């Protein structure tokens, strides 16, 4: 059951400071409302994964690993591979996170990233079929949150795309009933490059890429995932209040612009 979360006491004391700053056109870290934190992407840190990427978004730090394995397709999509996205919000990343089964925040995060990749048809699912209805390749995208300073959705989305775009795998083929791998690595076939951009409404102002302090006092949050042609492929609103129709229009147009900027950085980093 989902219930209203408790705000840490410190956040309550800071509430007014954060809102006043944003209302005066400033932010906790001296950014403007429409600017992103510095973004750093490293790929291939985990040699045992097919693809991996570590993302620093300001002080938020996320590691994403991609593993490709052989498995069975879902009965309703016998001619497609399988994509699974999971997120771990481990207790090392923040005092707000606890051990135990995935929280609703972790589930929401994973599902928003999944929606962006799936709906933009980023991974070429048809190319992952070894034997129709029987054997396909399964792409696991595992998101590890290492340090939580806000906007985990964008950091995870950037990490997921960088890890997928840099993923390498052996060519698998079916010989009789057995899967054999041919030597030589080839890239995971990608058709699209979805990028999530998240906005928060702090007081009456819309800011992009909120830091933790802003997230804790925001009225509402909106993530817009943009695919490579500038169309929207996923959206998710969060937070206790909402947005006006005009605010939504502004956000969507800004998202298209920010996604294109970040996409260029991600693809450059993935090439190495």
């Amino acid at each position, binding site marked *: *059951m*989902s*219930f*209203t979360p*408790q705000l840490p006491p410190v956040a309550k004391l800071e509430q007014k400071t954060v809102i006043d700053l944003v209302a005066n056109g400033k932010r906790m870290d001296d950014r403007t409302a429409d600017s992103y934190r510095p973004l750093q992407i490293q790929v291939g840190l985990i040699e045992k994964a097919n693809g991996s990427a570590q993302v620093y978004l300001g002080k938020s730090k996320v590691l994403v690993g991609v593993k490709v394995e052989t498995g069975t397709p879902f009965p309703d999509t016998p001619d497609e591979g399988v994509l699974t996205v999971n997120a771990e919000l481990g207790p090392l990343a923040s005092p707000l996170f606890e051990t135990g089964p995935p929280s*609703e925040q972790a*589930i*929401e995060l*994973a*599902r928003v990233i999944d*929606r962006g990749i*799936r*709906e*933009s048809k980023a991974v070429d699912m048809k190319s992952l079929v070894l034997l129709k209805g029987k054997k396909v390749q399964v792409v696991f995208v595992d998101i590890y949150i290492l340090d939580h300073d806000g906007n985990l959705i964008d950091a995870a989305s950037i990490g997921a795309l960088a890890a997928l775009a840099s993923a390498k795998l052996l060519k698998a083929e079916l010989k009789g009933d057995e899967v054999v791998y041919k030597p030589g690595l080839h890239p995971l076939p990608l058709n699209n490059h979805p990028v999530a951009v998240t906005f928060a409404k702090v007081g009456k102002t819309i800011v992009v890429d909120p830091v933790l302090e802003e997230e804790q006092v925001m009225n*509402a949050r*909106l993530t817009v995932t943009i*695919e490579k042609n*500038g*169309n*929207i*492929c*996923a*959206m*998710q*609103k*969060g*937070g*206790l*209040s*909402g*947005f*006006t*129709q005009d605010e*939504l*229009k502004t956000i*969507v*147009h800004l998202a*298209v612009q920010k996604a294109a900027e970040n996409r260029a950085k991600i693809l450059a980093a993935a090439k190495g």
Partner: protein
Amino acid sequence: MEKLPEPKQPEKLIDDKGIRIDGRRLDQLRPIKLEVGILDKADGSAYIEQGKNKILVGVYGPREAHPKHIALPDRAVLRCRYRMAPFSVDERKNPAPSRREMELSKVIRESLESVVLTDLYPRTTIDVFIEVLQSDGGSRCAGITAASLALADAGIPMRELVAACAVGKIQGHMALDLSDAEDKYGEADLPVAWVPNANLVTLLQMDGILTTSEFEKGLTMALDACKTIHGMQQEALKKKYLVIKEVAEEREETEVVA
């Protein structure tokens, strides 16, 4: 009967005259039936039928918070559970809570938070249970529409009612209130919840592909539909209390005769 006939993919979702598979125009809602106060034990309840959706919502509270540590000192905690019955869909749904249900419980709760005057009841919980008995596309929106009626029926002070409706894209056209088949074989789905007087969109999700102008058009369509649904919600509430009034008047008359 072991197996029901499986629904087939329709050849076309819109015919040459612009009519959808269930006979609707692109901007037309499915028939909606709303009932308020139909459960005995719950503090408030509501039932909605929208197309083939059949959804029952029960509200308990404000009541003492259990477990105690989730209680907040300055407001009531709003709790929400969205659940689909195993028999509500074509292929039996495993009764264990799915990731989808957990996500929807969260976004539905967040869509209701801003209208409930939670600061009047510190240290308590207000619980909203949404049971989807039959699902036909757009169940989260129908659930929100019914949940805000159930909250009102429980006598919980609210700023106003929340109305919700989805729009989507089928065969390249924006269409209102997608049915199950349209959602499945269409190109995009955009559920929206709206608080009319505060002019706030409190639920917004999207999957599929939409251009920015399609999104803007879809949002306007959804908000117009929410206005219509908001009117229906008010009527449903009035209807219940008119019945109560009539019953009370009848009783008064018989008492006078006696």
